[in-house]
């Protein structure tokens, strides 16, 4: 049984993935809801993330003063995250305490109170989180690019939301949103660690099966039409550093083209980190863009980032330039490297190298039980667990000819948004 994945679905639609690992006496439980900023409409931008905060504010069974200490006092850690496509909650705790984690998540799937006083106190906490983000120039640049990239699809805004919406969202809106999305059929429960599968399976059935599924999700998300021309954004703000961000519309994670992009990402900018806990990153000093820009003293750093999403999102590069640099020079060199990818065949050795990097990152990430449970749910959001299991093989199956053909459309100029952040000029 150890290290095999057991997958099943309860009658109410809750999907469950279990993986026994007996290296250390802990268990990590993750519950994923298929709701994030992708599900938000104008006027309620930031509501998914705010609901996540309110899931820590108590139920009748676990009132707020007890809830915020329950997991900690048995020696566990817990947290939650909201992203474009998902909201997730995890508890990693001593194996003997798993019943508590199961009960707590089953309870707050349906019984969170959403008390008006707590909502208002949390409103300013979320606004404070937004203000912290706003301190960063790259947050502003990234926000502007997302807005410019999406005119129809709700990937047009930040997960944290807008100040205006955060000030205006009501208790009714928050509670309705919670009830609409926190349903067994909209959730994935993933548990990895030191347990016996048959015993845990029956506990899950006992605890989660009685939760009725009252809403069925048939939400239709408008898809973004292909871009027809390149967009440019110029932002000014405090500071002296200069940033250039170039974002291309990119394939969804479940598109075979995604793996071609992952190979290209490794070549151009060094591989994006694949795991959130203990995977870490690999430096990118031999990547083509580092060589062309940093080694030639045009930029002080470069990075690239792909994201695994349900719908097509963005593949972004960020260049940090010395104060007083001309961004046009950096962009010209950047474009030369893009043209190279479009016109010169990538060697098999380069594809193998990207594959080996991914293999190593997965090896590091698999040392951590929390991370293993994370992957089961994360990959199930935009594909299924086989996406994760076959990731390295999928990279290895990419061939040089595919990359050449794919790059023609992927890196067409009309498919991108270029954002430049320059320091505010003093009068």
């Amino acid at each position: 049984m150890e290290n095999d994945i057991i997958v099943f679905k309860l009658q109410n639609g809750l999907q469950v993935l279990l993986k026994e690992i007996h290296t250390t006496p802990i268990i990590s439980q993750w519950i994923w809801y298929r709701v994030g900023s992708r599900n938000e409409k104008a006027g309620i931008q930031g509501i998914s993330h705010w609901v996540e905060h309110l899931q820590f504010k108590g139920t009748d069974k676990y009132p707020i003063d007890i809830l915020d200490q329950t997991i900690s006092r048995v020696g566990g850690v817990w947290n939650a995250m909201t992203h474009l496509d998902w909201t997730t909650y995890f508890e990693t705790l001593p194996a003997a305490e798993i019943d508590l984690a199961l009960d707590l998540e089953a309870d707050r799937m349906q019984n969170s109170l959403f008390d008006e006083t707590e909502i208002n106190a949390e409103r300013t906490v979320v606004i404070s989180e937004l203000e912290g983000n706003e301190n960063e120039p790259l947050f502003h640049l990234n926000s502007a690019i997302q807005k410019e990239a999406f005119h129809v699809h709700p990937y047009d805004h930040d997960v944290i939301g807008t100040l205006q919406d955060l000030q205006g969202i009501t208790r009714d809106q928050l509670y309705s949103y919670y009830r609409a999305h926190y349903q067994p059929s909209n959730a994935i429960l993933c548990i990895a660690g030191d347990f016996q599968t048959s015993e845990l399976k029956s506990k899950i059935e006992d605890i989660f099966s009685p939760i009725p599924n009252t809403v069925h999700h048939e939400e239709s998300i408008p898809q973004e039409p292909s871009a027809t021309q390149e967009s440019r954004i110029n932002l000014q703000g405090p500071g002296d550093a200069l940033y250039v961000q170039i974002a291309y519309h990119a394939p969804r994670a479940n598109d075979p083209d995604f793996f071609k992009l992952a190979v290209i990402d490794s070549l151009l900018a060094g591989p994006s980190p694949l795991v959130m806990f203990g995977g870490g990153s690999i430096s990118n000093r031999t990547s083509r863009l580092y060589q062309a820009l940093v080694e030639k003293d045009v930029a002080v750093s470069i990075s690239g980032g792909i994201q695994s999403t349900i719908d097509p999102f963005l593949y972004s590069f960020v260049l940090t330039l010395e104060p007083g640099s001309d961004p046009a020079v950096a962009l010209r060199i950047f474009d030369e490297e893009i043209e190279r990818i479009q016109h010169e065949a990538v060697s098999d050795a380069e594809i193998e190298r990207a594959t080996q990097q991914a293999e190593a990152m997965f090896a590091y990430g698999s040392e951590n039980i929390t991370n293993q449970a994370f992957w089961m749910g994360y990959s199930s959001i935009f594909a299924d667990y086989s996406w994760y299991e076959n990731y390295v093989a999928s990279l290895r199956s990419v061939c040089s000819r595919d990359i050449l053909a794919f790059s023609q459309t992927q890196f067409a100029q009309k498919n991108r948004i270029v954002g430049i952040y320059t320091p505010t000029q003093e009068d």
Partner: protein
Amino acid sequence: MQNTNTLNHPNFPGAHNIGRFQLPNGITVLAYSNMYSKSLTITGMLSSGGAWDPPDKTGTAHFTASMLLRGNANNNFQEIHEKLESVGASLTFSAGTKNTWFNGRSLVKDFPMLLALIFDSLTAPTFPEAYINRLRNQFLTGLIIRDQDTQEKASLEYDRALFGHHPYGIPVDGYPETIKNIQLEDLIRHHKTYSPQDALIAIAGALPLEQIEELVTSQFEAWDTVSPTSEPVFPEIHAPTQSIRIHVPIEGKSQSEIQLGTLGPARTSPDYYPAYLGNHVLGQFGLYGRIGKSVRNKEGLAYYAYSSLNALPETGSWEFNAGVNPQNVEKTIVLIVDEIKNYLERPVTKEELSDSQTHLIGRLPMSLESNAGIASALLSIERFDLGLDYFQSYADRILKITPEEILSVSNAYLDPEKLVIISAGANADHDH
């Protein structure tokens, strides 16, 4: 009290399965075999750091460490990074105040290559001139970005106000004017302070102990023993005698950073564990302990508000941080200082203590899951002389602390009338 027995799990590092040996040149090595993984992590430290920098060349130790991967006698920049990146391995060197650190990891098959690169970088760096200039420009841009960062600026000003001219009060990455002064000869001079004497290496990963010992010995025994440069003499550190309030203006920022505090116990002090538990009740447990309850949950002023103990080898800092709207800076400082006053007046409750004890004992296994976590823990065991049975005795150390001890130790360090209080960010409207 539940679950304390989980720390007796046979897979945890302890005297029974940690390998410890010394090379003739003075390097001490701790190793742990983790055959559940497919990789190895190595971490190490030398007795040399920013404290050795001349005042007009602050940043030299940091500059030197950063240059180690720019070229050595056997590999140029391209070769070093090709070796690492093509197989998904990683290696970094960095300088702290009193130490220079390295961290690396690779798949098992690539570990000999990683060890060789560490050895070549430490013993035979070439400091290519082109990279000195390139790195200098990168550092200068980094310092410009640092100047706009509210958290970094609050932390720098806090260290300066608390530690004064002691090296703990001086940023290891220097200042623009000192970075501009650093030349090739300064790097060469600083590199001479690197010595295997007193160096520590910790390794965890998927090789048997004997094989780790063989690989490390054959690679590092050739590092000739040189006498380490004796540590410079530093000014004494004194806790503030009255509260110091400093605001660092950074215009255009939505959020200000508050950092306040005073000296705390050293990692090896008997005061450490009572202060550690007290701090956990005060600003860590659950969502940031009592500080979080007041500043975040009750008043809704901040997304984060917590306290932390930064325990160094011979002193420490007991710090309180929060990120708030510029208009709420003064209000938040009052709330935090009130919590400190309250905390110093009466012992923490038995329930609070018990919650923190169970939490700290229960979560320990999570820090020992990965090779990186184990290697870092092994290094601390040796650095702070914690004993090879540290994890097996951890529960006892934590459980024997009493509320009265916490109160007495906390009062020996914290005084609400004698704090360094820093804010960094936009001025509040009423200040205009």
